[in-house]
């Protein structure tokens, strides 16, 4: 049996060289390929990346939710000192719900359509905390109230299809919070929701996190979502962390060209209408046969011959705790030279970035 209180320092979740591969008929998909990070109690880590970067797989497989013969996990993920990689389903289940919980992307599909919302909240309470039916019900009402659902008494006996999207996501949050987890993994909790509801849900998560002194991993494709709400940000690309920094430092000193491209791809209100959106040209690489050098090299405006042959290591910048994976980082002499060289050669991605840097749209950058 594993014991929970062996580590007394601040780290709640320590992930080291974590890998999650899928064995498919086409080959081995390296969805998460050597990821390391540490999350302290009560802190928030934002994991950012575009679709297919491995962020959802990372969240799910750290928790151990991905099972199946074709899933291969290696490396280390320690929760409160407990090694999760290689732990049995039974050992993991003892942690799920009570120690760590997950909020899923789409509340339209993550609630069971044939069970009343109340039951979906109380079943965990009754199983883990051995509450009686009425105690569990009282607790569920309180939870619904705390996640901002008006008239919980009515909602508790309704089915998911009788609730709006935002309401359902509040219910899934109530479910995740039910047994008092110390770690909440929120996997794109607002992506499937109306824009008007997104901020409310994020605020709710933040408020609950502070009240319960809970650590949170916030997975999103939207840098704007994590900007004001996280302590650290990890930017993922093709299964790897390509930049990792305290939130304020990341936005102040972007090093990784991919992060820069992500930032510029956010449309800004100050831009005149009909401004062309700055999409990142190309597509994330094939995760069965990823490029041998830097994985972003095929799309990078800063790319140099070295990038295609040698994979850059995660290195620390002059700011402590700011890691990046690039040979020609943004904001350094090497980076400026590389970009100037590519712009002179007429590479479209480089030309467009150079233009943006010279003439920040809307004057905000």
């Amino acid at each position, binding site marked *: 049996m594993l014991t929970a209180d062996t580590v007394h320092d601040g780290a709640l979740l320590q992930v080291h060289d974590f890998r999650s591969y899928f064995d498919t008929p086409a080959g081995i998909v390296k969805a998460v390929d050597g990821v390391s990070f540490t999350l302290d109690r009560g802190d928030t880590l934002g994991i950012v990346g575009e679709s297919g970067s491995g962020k959802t797989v990372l969240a799910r497989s750290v928790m151990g939710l991905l099972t199946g013969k074709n899933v291969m996990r290696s490396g280390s993920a320690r929760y409160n000192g407990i090694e999760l990689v290689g732990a049995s389903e039974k050992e993991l289940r003892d942690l799920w719900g009570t120690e760590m919980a*997950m909020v899923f992307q789409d509340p339209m599909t993550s609630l069971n359509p*044939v069970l009343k919302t109340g039951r979906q909240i109380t079943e*965990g309470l009754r199983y883990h905390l051995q509450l009686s039916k009425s105690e569990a019900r009282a607790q569920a009402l309180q939870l619904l109230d705390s996640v901002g659902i008006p008239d919980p008494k009515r909602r508790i006996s309704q089915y998911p299809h009788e609730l709006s999207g935002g309401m359902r996501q509040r219910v899934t949050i109530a479910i995740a919070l039910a047994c008092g987890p110390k770690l909440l993994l929120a996997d794109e909790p607002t992506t499937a929701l109306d824009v008007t509801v997104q901020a409310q849900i994020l605020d709710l998560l933040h408020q609950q996190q502070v009240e319960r002194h809970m650590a949170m991993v916030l997975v999103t494709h939207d840098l704007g979502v994590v900007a004001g709400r996280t302590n650290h940000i990890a930017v993922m690309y093709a299964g790897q962390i390509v930049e990792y920094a305290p939130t304020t430092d990341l936005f102040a000193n972007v090093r990784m060209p991919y992060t820069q491209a992500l930032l510029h791809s956010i449309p800004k209100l100050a831009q005149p209408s009909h401004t062309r959106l700055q999409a990142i040209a190309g597509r994330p690489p094939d995760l069965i046969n990823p490029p041998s050098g830097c994985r972003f090299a095929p799309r990078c405006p800063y790319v140099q011959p070295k990038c295609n042959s040698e994979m850059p290591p995660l290195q620390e910048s002059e700011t402590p705790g700011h890691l990046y994976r690039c040979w020609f980082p943004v904001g350094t002499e090497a980076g400026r030279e590389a970009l100037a060289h590519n712009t002179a050669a007429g590479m479209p991605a480089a030309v467009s970035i150079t233009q943006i840097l010279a003439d920040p749209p809307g004057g905000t950058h």
Partner: protein
Amino acid sequence: MGILKGAVTRLLKLLAVVLVVSFLTFSLTKLLPGDPVVVLLGPQYSNVEVREAVQEDLGLNKPFLTQYVQYLGNVAQGDLGRSYTSKFETTELLKQKLPATIELMLLAQLVSLTLAIPLALFSAFRSNSRTDKAITTASFGLISIPGYAFAVFLVWLFALRFNWFPAIGYQPISEGIVGNLRSIALPLTVLVAGLTAVYTRLLRSDLISTLQEDFILMARSKGLPTRYILARHALRPSSFSLITVFGIQFGTLIGGAVIIEQFFVLPGIGSLAIESILKRDYLVVQGVVLLIAISFVLINFLIDILYTILDPRVRRAGA
């Protein structure tokens, strides 16, 4: 209230179905060659007076529609007419023959479901494992074998070779439950084999797709035990096509009863239907078909209600 209203409209529709069925069987028995009066009178048929007297007596000389309306009127009062040949009331004959058929059918359905649900759960949860492949192959094999062929094999093995069960005959429950169960063991096995195979395959494939759903992942992330998730979260949303087919199988079973009851010499509705058809005892045939139609329609009405219980989303769609 929505449920009640839906139920009433559905019942009316079903009543229409029963009317159509009764009309069709009534016309069909008139269209078939062979006159019941021939069977009834034998050589006396050539005597015109006697023949017409009998036709008059049976109401066969009246126009077709009049006969039908009269028949319906009697049916509404619970009178299905009297057998031309045995002079028994049709309702009496049905009462005699029903227990064997009902027992066989209900037991077959219950046993099959009881076997199929755990088999499918196991098979789906461990899909592509060896056990799953064994279950899938076995059920595929059982679906492919016709019931009567399987029946021959069972009789040879368990009745003739080992002498464990009687090959033919039926002992009513009133004469002892053990003897009763022994007497239907072989026909029951034939039916159960086919049904279980169908139900297992159907439920397995629906379960496999349900297990891919986000809400299953969500339930797992709550740390709930696997058995609980399978039983509480996966089974219900996977059971819709199962119960549809379950209802339809009642119809197939009644049809199959004709063969099975003949083969094992069971005194059921199926045997009654065959005997009556061979004797041109049309009133009894009509009675049997009407009863079958009504039960089938009622069973599927109950299945429709079961839908609304199992799936709350159907309730709102309001029938």
